[in-house]
């Protein structure tokens, strides 16, 4: 789906902390739609790259440009963290929160939140404290909260890490539905099975740089670089 958000173009984007380069320089373009899967070994900078593109990590050099002004671009994105952040509120209030922040009336926000709670399978627990949910339920809540504003782009940082098979399957189904509804997903994962199931494009990250980028089929069947091939074989890549 083409929207006024895309394309996003990162040129020589880099973030550093205390003089150490965490990610970059990175050149990347997102055209919207589909799932861009960011993969790479531990410490490659997957989480930082997602934060950098989303605007929650400081860009120390280079540029990241959207098709619309930055403020408008931020309002069309959302982020799902590896460890979901739960507000000390009920499930319903958590899901409705982004709408309330944007000025929606309580009744309208809660009605939409109920709908999203049903969609992610939390309809029976909307009045419970979000803090007493299981890890899988909290991640589903976080996804519902990220989607309730109907963003054009969602960043997901290993959303299924430490979840069991059943919860992973449910969350992947929600993500498939979201993709089919036209929302672009940029997601990081360690799980190569999940990457193969969901990815349309793959961004292979190594030492904070985009080492290889390709359509998912091409990448998984014929990786160009030896490091990417080694990573896919399960070898240790340094």
């Amino acid at each position: 789906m083409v929207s006024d958000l895309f394309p996003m173009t990162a040129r020589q984007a880099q973030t550093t902390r205390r003089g150490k380069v965490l990610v970059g320089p990175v050149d990347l373009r997102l055209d919207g739609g589909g799932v861009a899967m960011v993969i790479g070994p531990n410490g490659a900078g997957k989480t930082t790259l997602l934060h950098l593109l989303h605007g929650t990590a400081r860009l120390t050099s280079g540029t990241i440009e959207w098709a619309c002004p930055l403020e408008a671009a931020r309002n069309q994105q959302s982020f799902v963290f590896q460890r979901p952040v739960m507000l000390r509120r009920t499930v319903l209030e958590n899901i409705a929160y982004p709408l309330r922040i944007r000025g929606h009336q309580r009744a309208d926000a809660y009605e939409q939140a109920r709908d999203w709670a049903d969609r992610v399978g939390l309809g029976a627990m909307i009045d419970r404290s979000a803090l007493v949910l299981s890890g899988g339920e909290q991640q589903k809540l976080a996804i519902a909260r990220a989607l309730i504003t109907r963003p054009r782009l969602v960043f997901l940082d290993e959303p299924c890490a430490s979840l069991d098979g059943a919860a992973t399957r449910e969350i992947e189904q929600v993500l498939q539905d979201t993709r089919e509804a036209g929302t672009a997903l940029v997601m990081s994962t360690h799980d190569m099975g999940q990457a193969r199931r969901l990815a349309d494009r793959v961004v292979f990250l190594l030492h904070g740089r985009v080492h290889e980028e390709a359509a998912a089929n091409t990448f998984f069947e014929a990786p160009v670089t030896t490091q990417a091939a080694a990573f896919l074989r399960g070898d240790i890549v340094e």
Partner: protein
Amino acid sequence: MGDLWSGLLQAFWLVITFDPELVEIAGRSLRITLTALVIASLIALPLAALLAVRRFRWRRTVIALMNALMGLPPVVVGLVVYVLLSRSGPFGVMGLLFTPTAMIIAQVIIIVPLIASIAHQSLRELWTEYHDLLISINVTQGQKIRTLLWDARRALLTATLAGFGRAIGEVGAIMIVGGNIDHATRVLTTAIALETGRGDFALALGLGFVLIALAVTVNLAIHWLGRTEREGRW
């Protein structure tokens, strides 16, 4: 030991007979303290939230100063407020010295740093937890502060109750700026000081027990109204 028993008996007697003077003094104590508490909370809680979410150059210094002011000597506060409100002081024209308003001002000055420091501790921890989410949702500074204050309301209740405890038991500052005038500025603590000075330990103890009972009752009432401990893990 005898004084303790007769103090208890006297407190019991004063309460069950609804002693008019006790009712007047206790009522004034509550009125002044609760007014000071509301004003102090309106200043301290947003200040604590602002210090939790906003980064500015002198932030650490402000926090350190606020923590240091928790131990502000009430007598000194009373003296400063006295000088400011006395006829020759900058606010003398307002005629507030030896009035309940002067006592409220002194109490507010004493408890704002206490409430703000305790509240800041809770809000800082909550902000660490919420930071990434709220930044990613792109909330405004005001929305951050409102979210933190609402979600930490139970912890903030503890901060305000600490302020209440400090204010209701305060004697030094309010004695100086209130003057302990009968039917005007006499409150439980200044009455206790007066009776102790007169050597009527039993009455002083009796008033002391009433003060403790009042403080416990208000604390329990606020906990009950705030539904603390009722909604499981928050």
